[in-house]
């Protein structure tokens, strides 16, 4: 994570951040062991729920059939994923897809029915009450859609609440809370009550409260869904900024695709309790796993998500030697600008090597959605070490803000 932070010292870009993916695919994504590892997770609501996950005759039923047959609702069905250290892992889906239940299962706010959850290798489901409290107090903090602030406490005391629960002394927790008031930009409002704040401000308090206990992971449950669009955007940038500054691991639940694409290093797309696709924003948009996902991402401005890596072809002739140079994770929209300006195909250059070229044909194909299906690494032109490596447009750096995880994760 630290590598990413340093790489992205330039100012944040608001519009292009959705397109970002990791700055140097090789360098960062390796970051070690998973924070959360979830496998075969089920949450079934209803009578005798525990029999459902084990019964293969029932597990294959659709939601309506399952309900008719057993009276149960499977909110989470056989879900497995890993959240890596330092990444923003987005779980996205429409309402009723089970995403909020899933995130509550992570700290057992909702008791899972079956499956395993581990945090840093420790089995969460096996924890006793004290250990679980310890997990909630120090390791995973949550930010809620409806804030969940205590209306009778001031902003400061709300932020200090987590510390109070841990038994931190009054002076110390107030001091610490004051720091976080500043961090989320609520200076001067310390003594207000939550009811006197706007929705966005309230959520800043919620965020500060979660941050104040210095958790290993931040869990967001649709934190910005209740906010106005402009404020939502502000808050998203706030999260991006915080992530860039602190590199904290985040699990982010949302039903808003644009939010998912803006924030997520990786996105798990849920439907009816299952994960239908898990991948980088580019993979989700570029190669939807099924018709549902395709329909879902249909209106996404592709050129802002897809990178030239997916659009390039092998260089032919002298193409590898001329034309503007772009980095592999340049977005298509940025490449279009470069190509349009110079009128010739752009070279995709990584550390001085020309990986391939993108011409207007390929770029238009991406925009129109008719381009060839991305085949991952593309066909790299035989590496021609090139002296033009420095010519990579500086503009790219800014889009590499908060991304840490590597690409090409299936």
């Amino acid at each position, binding site marked *: 994570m630290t590598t990413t932070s340093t790489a992205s010292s330039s100012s944040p870009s608001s519009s292009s951040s959705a397109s970002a993916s990791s700055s140097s695919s090789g360098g960062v994504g390796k970051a070690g062991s998973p924070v959360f590892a979830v496998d075969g997770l089920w949450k079934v609501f209803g009578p005798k729920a525990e029999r459902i996950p084990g019964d293969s005759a029932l597990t294959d039923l659709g939601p309506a059939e399952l309900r008719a047959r057993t009276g149960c609702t499977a909110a989470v069905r056989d879900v497995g994923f890993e959240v890596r250290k330092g990444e923003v892992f987005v779980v996205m889906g429409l309402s009723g897809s089970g995403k909020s239940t899933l995130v509550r299962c992570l700290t057992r*706010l909702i008791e899972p029915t079956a499956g395993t959850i581990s945090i840093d290798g420790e089995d969460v489901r096996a924890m006793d009450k004290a250990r679980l*409290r310890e997990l909630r*107090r120090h390791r995973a903090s949550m930010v809620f859609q409806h804030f*969940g*602030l*205590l209306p*009778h406490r001031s902003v*400061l005391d709300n932020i200090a609440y*987590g510390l109070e629960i841990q038994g931190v002394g009054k002076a110390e927790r107030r001091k610490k809370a004051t720091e976080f008031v500043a961090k989320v930009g609520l200076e001067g409002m*310390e003594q207000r009550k939550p009811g006197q704040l706007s929705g966005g401000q309230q959520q800043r308090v919620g965020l500060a409260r979660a941050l104040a206990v210095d958790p290993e992971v931040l869990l967001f449950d649709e934190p910005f869904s209740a906010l106005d669009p402009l404020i939502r955007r502000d808050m998203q940038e706030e999260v991006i900024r915080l992530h860039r500054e602190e590199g904290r691991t985040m699990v982010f639940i949302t039903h808003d695709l644009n939010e998912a694409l803006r924030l997520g290093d990786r996105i798990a797309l849920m439907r009816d309790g299952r994960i239908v696709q898990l991948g980088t924003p580019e993979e989700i948009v570029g190669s939807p796993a099924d018709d549902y996902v395709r329909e879902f991402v249909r209106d996404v401005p592709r050129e802002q998500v897809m990178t030239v890596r997916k659009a390039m072809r092998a260089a032919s002739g002298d193409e590898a030697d001329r034309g503007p140079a772009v980095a592999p994770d340049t977005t298509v929209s940025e490449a279009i600008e470069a190509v349009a300006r110079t009128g010739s195909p752009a070279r995709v250059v990584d550390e001085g090597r020309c990986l391939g070229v993108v011409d207007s044909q390929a770029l238009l194909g991406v925009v129109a959605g008719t381009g060839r299906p991305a085949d991952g690494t593309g066909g790299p032109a035989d590496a021609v070490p090139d002296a033009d490596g420095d010519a990579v447009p500086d503009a790219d750096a800014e889009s590499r803000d908060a991304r840490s995880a590597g690409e090409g994760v299936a």
Partner: protein
Amino acid sequence: MAATTTAVPATGAAALARSVVKHRAFGKLLLLAVVAAVLIPVVNARWASGTWPEALTVDVSDPLTKTSDWIIDNRDSHPLFLYFFGHVSNAVVLSVRAVYVVLLAAGWAGVTAAAALIAWRVAGVRLAIGTGVAFLVSGLLNMWVPAMQTLALMVVAVLASVVLGALLGLAAGLSDRTYRALRPVLDTMQVLPAFSYLLPVVLIFGIGVPAAVIATVVYAAPPMARLTALGLRGADGGVMEAVASMGTTARQRLLTARLPLARKELLLGLNQTIMMALSMAVIASLVGAGGLGDRVYQALASVDVGAALAASIPIVLLAIVLDRVTGAAGERLGDSGSSASSAKSGLVWWGCVAVGAVAVALAGRFTDRLNWPQGWVVNIAEPVNRAVDWMTAHLYSGVPYVGGTADWAGHFTTWVLDPVRDGLQGLPWWSVLLIVATLAWLIGTWRTALTAVLAMAAIGALGVWKPSLDTLSQVLAAVAVTLVVGFAIGAVAARSERLERLLRPVLDVFQTMPQFVYLIPVVALFGVGRAPAVAAAVVYALPAVIRITTQGLRQVSPAAMESSRSLGATNWQQLRQVQLPLARPALLLAVNQGVVLVLAVVIIGGLVGGGALGYDVVFGLAQGDLATGLVAGAAIVCLGLMLDRVTQPTERRTRKGA
């Protein structure tokens, strides 16, 4: 539907029949009719009589007399009394006396200053002035000592009620099982008239202060318990989840989140408990409470309206002040601005309040002015009595064209109360049960219907069928008047902002007054008898009915109103086709509340010649004939239960009339 019927008579009728069969109410009626058709011939053949058959009554007065004798004989020797009730009784006497002594020691100046300072601290300057005035008026009317007696009893009773209620509420708020067990009990206690609590308490404790305090606690604790449980259970799920997600222990969740989140309900519970305690502390003068209530009671017994008024003015002022101060405290707590600094400065302020009160009390002591100076007493009894005499002479009867108040009362009795009573008593007993069952089932569920029928049957079995129907006839007449007037005023107030603004303070005052107080003006106006009891009941129940009606009509969704207006509906069409149907739950609630409140006062009307069950209770207390009183009390409970269940809409609200 009508159009179809006229156009194609045959199919129209068929469709009508189908739609009627599908209707739930019709199914219920059909079933009841079948049951009735089977049972009534049998029942009628065996026990054919208009009134409740002798064969079906159980004589409880003998065993009750024996029980009461046994208790009186063993009150000083049986371990249960020695080691439990005896201690309770002693503790009550001691604590009431202690508070009383403190109040007397503080002197009138000290008490007034302390009350005003507390009011100022929790509720602001205006209420502080009001509080001071209320206490001074008590002194002016020469009611200082009785007021302190009532206050001492109240302090002890309210503290006990709050502790008891909060504990019960805590248990019910945290445990589902306790809640399910406790809720029907609390709901039922809420609807029982205060009178029915007196007898069992007297049976155990005898007449005296302990009985009065215990009756008050039993009457006043349920709202605290109810509201505590409601508040704890109603905690915002999102907040509770967030708090749990931070790793709180169960204790921390309760103390830092659940209880603070319920603070509004807790304060509302405190407010209601205080108001009900005051109401009961006044009524409990019948069982030896002393104080203001006793003065009213004595004055009413000798129809001395002036003296009754002098005693009831402090009661009313005390009620208003207590209600406003606790209410304002609740609102302040709800939206207080800063908290961090206020904890410390709050202590300082409270210190100032204490110091100020003590200083005034000491000043009073040193200037030897502990007792209210006799020179400052205003005797209003005589002028009031003169006014009443004048009214009796000039307004009672013979006023040209309009008649007189006594004439009205007489006409109401002969033309309304008597026919209704005779009609009810003339009905075959089983048909009364059938009517009760039908009404209760149509409005509620089969459970409420069953409870209602059983309660009514119990009245018959207790052998008080006739007096109960007498009481019922008064209740029905009073409820009819209340609803007609209440709905009319409510409907107008819902349309006119100005009228509502005018009405609001009046309703507020009327809703806070103890039931007892309503008897005084009606006695002045109408003399004694059943009509004044009904009038008092109407006046007591009217504010709640008006308020619920107004709120119900106002809360009708503005969108529905707007759309009907956009379709060109007239005012009348809007009221009839949109507002009334949408406000149906509120109107049903108004009926329910009206019935419950009317019953409470009709029973108390036994003190002013209402007769029937209320009189039996008073008689039982006065003559030491506990058996009669207890049976009447049980019949009141049954009647209250029946009336509540018959009018019970599916959902209940928490607060009397608000």
